[in-house]
């Protein structure tokens, strides 16, 4: 059974095999370049994020897909939903801006809070950090797509499943000719 799967590969000559590997590479690269292209267009280092917690209910639920932009010329305002990074945390947080101080030279510092949380985010920030600044911001929410992100959440909760799916896809593409 496994033998017959690799039959196609065995029959290929050198150039066909190289092409097979390259076309797999191009599938991956196309996805990568679309992502990098979105980064350039939106100005955000991560233009699409998935909401992982219920802290912004009822605005966003777990599994919602958010589309972000991060144009430097657009000021941050109170009431906007921002996605920000905190030192020592891998996963960015999606919360609403609660208080904001802006100086004449344009620098801002602001405090955030989850709509569904009873306290503001100072407890979540890095030790001793009281305010967020512009460099912490990944982007501002501009649009959302409900439920789609659940797939990503399940994939992350069951990493083995994720690797199995990815491995199957990779083998299929590498082994099948055209």
């Amino acid at each position, binding site marked *: 059974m496994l033998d*017959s799967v690799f*039959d*196609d*590969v*065995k*029959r*290929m*000559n*050198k*150039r066909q*095999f*190289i*092409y097979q590997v*390259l*076309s797999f*590479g*191009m599938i*991956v*690269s*196309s996805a*990568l*370049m679309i992502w*990098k*292209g979105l*980064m*350039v267009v939106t*100005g955000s*280092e991560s233009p699409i994020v998935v909401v992982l917690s219920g802290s912004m209910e009822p605005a966003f639920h777990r599994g919602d897909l958010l589309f972000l932009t991060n144009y430097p010329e657009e000021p941050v305002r109170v009431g906007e939903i921002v996605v920000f990074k905190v030192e020592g945390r891998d996963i960015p947080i999606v919360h609403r801006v609660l208080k904001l101080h802006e100086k004449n030279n344009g620098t801002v510092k602001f405090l955030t809070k989850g709509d569904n949380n009873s306290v503001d985010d100072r407890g979540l920030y890095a030790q001793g950090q009281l305010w967020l600044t512009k460099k912490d911001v990944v982007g501002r929410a501009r649009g959302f797509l409900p439920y789609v992100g659940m797939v990503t959440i399940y994939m992350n909760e069951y990493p083995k499943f994720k690797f199995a799916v990815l491995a199957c896809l990779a083998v299929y593409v590498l082994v099948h*000719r*055209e």
Partner: protein
Amino acid sequence: MGETNEPVKINKWDGAAAKNAIDDAIREVLTGDLKCNESFALIDGRLSLCALAVGVALYALLWDYLYPFPQSRLVLIICVSSYFILMSILTLYTTFKEKGIFVVAKEKVGNNNTRVWEASSYVKKHDDKYNLVIVMRDSTGKSREASINKSFANYIDTNGAVVQNIVSNEITKLYNSLSSEKKEK
């Protein structure tokens, strides 16, 4: 990969697999029995386009890793746009230059004359007809072509193996008719 001579079993109702197997058989006839030299320029052109595109993507990935996003913006713009330009060039190359040609073979005839044989094939989706077109170009630049349009069942036996004899006969027939036409003119 490799040169195994054991017969391969294919499902002749899997259009792509059957097409690939017959293509391979025809290549073998042209470069083996008919003693032509395979020329790889066409496929190498496609391979280098693909490699260049993947290289650009890898470069963008590396650069973005070394100089995180806002800094890498310019490089990313250049890489992303050149990647998509390369992809469109690749599409144009495969549709207008390759046109399904799977083997190009050069043949020396007499004194310094070379003839170029190009074989291309296509199969319509959900169809069992294998369309083969062979084009011969002589050194003066004139070209002649001949084609066969037969079902897969003509080339593949009930065990799912390509019958090399039948393929060889068909190709030799085409080869002879294209070669002799040349003499008449």
